[in-house]
């Protein structure tokens, strides 16, 4: 799963448009799954499913109509009800016109359409925009499951935590250039720190000793009841929280500086988190 990040105006949408053959590059070439986007548009479309950003489905068509339409264009046989149930659309929604769908239902419908025919690559453009927290979690679970099944996912999102949680690889676009590509688990992210801050009722010094000895903890600062722990990765931060819970009574907790957040900040703004 590849996370495609960048600030507004960086060229994310233009890049996606070029990759999908919706816009021609002013210079250079682009290939998707080995096919040139300008000369083999149809071959690409046969192998790619797309979840567009902020597009209303065909208003007079039901959920089932949408799936059947895409299946016919792809020349595949699918069970539309099974497809809609897979993305969490209830049975009562299957026969309703898509104009009556909520934002979350529309996103699920687009995802179901994108998955018709088991495409080799799925392009998701801001898949959780406009969703409530439950909807975001459900879409993330579906996308993660999709990635685990072996499908290549290209996820464009402005939600850093979303990309960090779901993707293996990331690319950060800035001023039309890919400035950074990295594996979410690799060293380039580990060079950036994350922190967690506790307010403890007691035993802060005992806590310092326990946290300092933990691998991945860079520093522990204590100011009265406030303990700030700087870690190398988000995973180290979770371990630090677990250690703190074992050693002291935690009254409050806050986190800062997600690793990808820091990388994004450094790439786009040239800053260090």
């Amino acid at each position, binding site marked *: 799963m590849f996370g495609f990040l960048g600030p507004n105006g960086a060229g994310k949408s233009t890049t996606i448009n070029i990759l999908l053959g919706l816009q021609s590059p002013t210079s250079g070439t682009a290939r998707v799954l080995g096919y040139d986007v300008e000369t083999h548009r149809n071959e690409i479309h046969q192998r790619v499913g797309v979840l567009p950003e*902020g*597009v209303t489905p065909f208003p*007079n068509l039901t959920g089932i109509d949408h799936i059947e339409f895409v299946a016919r264009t792809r020349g595949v046989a699918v069970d539309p009800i099974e497809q809609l149930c897979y993305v969490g659309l209830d049975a009562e929604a299957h026969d309703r016109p898509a104009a009556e769908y909520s934002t979350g239902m529309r996103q699920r419908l687009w995802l179901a359409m994108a998955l018709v025919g088991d495409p080799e690559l799925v392009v998701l453009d801001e898949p959780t925009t406009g969703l409530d927290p439950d909807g975001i979690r459900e879409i993330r679970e579906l996308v993660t499951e999709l990635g685990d099944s072996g499908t290549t996912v290209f996820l464009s999102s402005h939600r850093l935590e979303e990309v960090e949680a779901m993707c293996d690889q990331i690319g950060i676009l800035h001023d039309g250039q890919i400035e950074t590509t990295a594996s979410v688990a690799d060293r380039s992210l580990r060079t950036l720190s994350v922190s967690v801050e506790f307010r403890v009722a007691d035993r802060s010094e005992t806590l310092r000793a326990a946290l300092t000895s933990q691998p991945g903890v860079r520093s522990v600062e204590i100011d009265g009841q406030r303990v700030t722990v700087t870690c190398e990765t988000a995973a180290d931060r979770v371990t630090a929280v677990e250690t703190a819970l074992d050693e002291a009574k935690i009254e409050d907790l806050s986190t800062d500086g997600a690793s990808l957040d820091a990388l994004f900040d450094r790439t786009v703004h040239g800053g260090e988190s």
Partner: protein
Amino acid sequence: MNVRPYARRDLVGLWRSRVGLLLLGLFGGCVVGVTGARIAGFPLSNVYGLVLFVGQFLFPAVGLLLGVSSVVDHRESGTLRVLFTLPGRRRDVVLGAFVARCGVLGAGFGLLTAVTTGVATVYGAPVGRPVVLFSLTAALTVSWLAVGTTISVFATTQRRAFFTVILLYLVGVVFWNTLFPVSPDVAVAAMAGRLNLSLPLGVQRGVLLLAPGNAFLVGLQFLGGESYLNLVVSFFGTPVPSGWIAPVVLVAWSVLPLAAAVKQAESLELS
């Protein structure tokens, strides 16, 4: 070519939309009108005359309005991005929209022809006339549908498309189809004179006959009988232009705009 899925999607969408209801009302009204008029004692030739004179203004508008919504609506709503990222050529999207609308019109004109033919059979009138009349009217409507579809592909917003359609209706239907035939020798010659051109009569008639509505009128001689031939003579003078001008011109007005629409769709940039 993989037009069928797109045509089917458009057909279902149209059928469930207000457009479907309006067309149902239009053709249903025509069916009731034709049947009711004959039952009330009006000769069928009078009913045909009414259809002919009302239809040559009404059905081009229907075709244009039906066509203009075909692609630009998807462009504004964003669904054109989805349609253009599905397997199949972009021409399939355009032709699918056109074929679906042709299907709706075909069903309407088919119903109208069937009912009118039935009425003609019951009252002992020539049964071939409604077939010719409604075939010509359908061809006229489809030619403007093609023009509307083409405008829809080229336009970037619904508003621009709508204004272009109004302008084209005024020029291509009201002006070319109505004002010129009133007195073609005077009108065309006067227009040419303003441009310091001296057009031979054949060219003047050629200019007239290129209008879809005028080609439709020339085709009325296929209805048979002296009165319909005289009608053609009253518009275009003698010698009477060949009736085959009608299908040739109407098919050309369908094919050429669609070819331009397909070419434009293939190179359309969606940002």
